[in-house]
């Protein structure tokens, strides 16, 4: 008997809450937080690791609050928030000025890691296995295979060339294939 389309009301709710929040309604912004925190936190955890995930999640929502006036409603709020999160996560690591060296070190690690992990690691949770990848390969794998970015976009975001992005992605996948049973 329900005539309300359940697929349209929630989308409208996000847009409404974003507008309310842009006008200063913290309760509306809390509703947005509740709706999207799992995705943003998971993105931060996969991109930067458990230690930084909570802080990056907080930073993302605070930044989103500050930038809400730039949300024009042309994309879904979740998509816009996701972009904010990517910028926060990558910006944070960039300001730490360790990203490039980590990525370079990551390549070294990849080269020295066995093509297939030991059997004892096979049962590791796949998500946890992503966290064990070298930083550069992990970010590229998450951005490409989990989040759906193109190599060209990744290259711009990470200030690397497209060939490096493709090579890192392949190596990340090769490392992860040993954890499929987890």
């Amino acid at each position, binding site marked *: 008997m*329900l005539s309300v389309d359940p697929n349209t009301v929630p989308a409208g709710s996000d847009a409404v809450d974003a507008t309310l929040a842009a006008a200063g309604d913290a309760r509306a912004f*809390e509703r947005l937080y509740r709706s999207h925190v799992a995705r943003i*936190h998971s993105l931060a955890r996969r991109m930067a690791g458990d230690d930084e995930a909570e802080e990056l999640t907080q930073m993302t929502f605070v930044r989103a609050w500050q930038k809400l006036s730039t949300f024009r409603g042309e994309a879904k709020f979740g998509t816009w928030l996701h972009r904010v999160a990517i910028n926060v996560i990558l910006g944070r690591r960039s300001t730490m000025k360790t990203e490039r060296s980590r990525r370079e070190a990551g390549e070294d690690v990849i080269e020295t890691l066995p093509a297939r992990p030991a059997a004892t690691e096979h049962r590791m949770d796949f998500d946890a296995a992503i966290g064990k990848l070298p930083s550069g390969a992990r970010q590229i794998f998450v951005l490409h295979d989990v989040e759906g970015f193109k190599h060209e976009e990744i290259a711009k975001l990470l200030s690397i060339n497209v060939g490096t992005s*493709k090579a890192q992605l392949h190596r990340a996948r090769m490392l992860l294939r040993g954890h499929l049973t987890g």
Partner: protein
Amino acid sequence: MHTIPPGAAGEHEMWSERLSAYLDGELKNAECERLEAHVAECAACAVALAELREVMARAHTLVDTPPATDLWPAIEAQLTPRGAAAQPERGRVIAGPSWWGRRFELGIPQLAAAAAVLVVISAGVMWMVMGGTLRGSNVAAPPAPMRGIETASTGPAVPADLSNPRYDAAVAELEQALAEGKGKLDPRTLAVVQHNLQIIDNAIADARRAVAADPGNTWLRSHLAETMKKKVELLRSATMLASAQG
């Protein structure tokens, strides 16, 4: 580019490195054919190809999980007030919709009173839509807005037209105030407000039809009431934002 003949030393390494590019559709047709020919004869590459496919598939099935602790209190503490629209300064006089006091200049006391009126209207809408009974409340006065959702169909019948003159009057006044103040809003902000008002109006219309068809459904009543409240809240915020821009 790839001049290593079939069977030559290094061919396995070359194609092994290109398995991801193959799966991502980045190889040209001729390269695809050569890689597939190699995989057909190379057990290691065949296994690797299958496992890479599974890795890619698994990447799409990861489950998002919230943080172990609620981060909202820490986030809320860092939210800066959003100008006068969010928190008018003490004693500051800002323009407001006429129905708040038949004046367009409102001080803090009047704004407080207006807020109280909005609460009463919101609660009244909830009380009316819920058919005059809410869980935990059996008094005649409108109760506080309900936050939970009930699924049991226990509510009594509601008026067929679901009308509430106070709500309708409040919305009309707010709409009038917004119409008069919309010129002060950024055109993009105004477009978002108008777009979302249309979304809410559609949702209200849908919910009204649903309640009319299933008047005993408590969840539908709650949904309708919440949607009607959202319209008031959006109109209120937009009007105050316009007023603050003046």
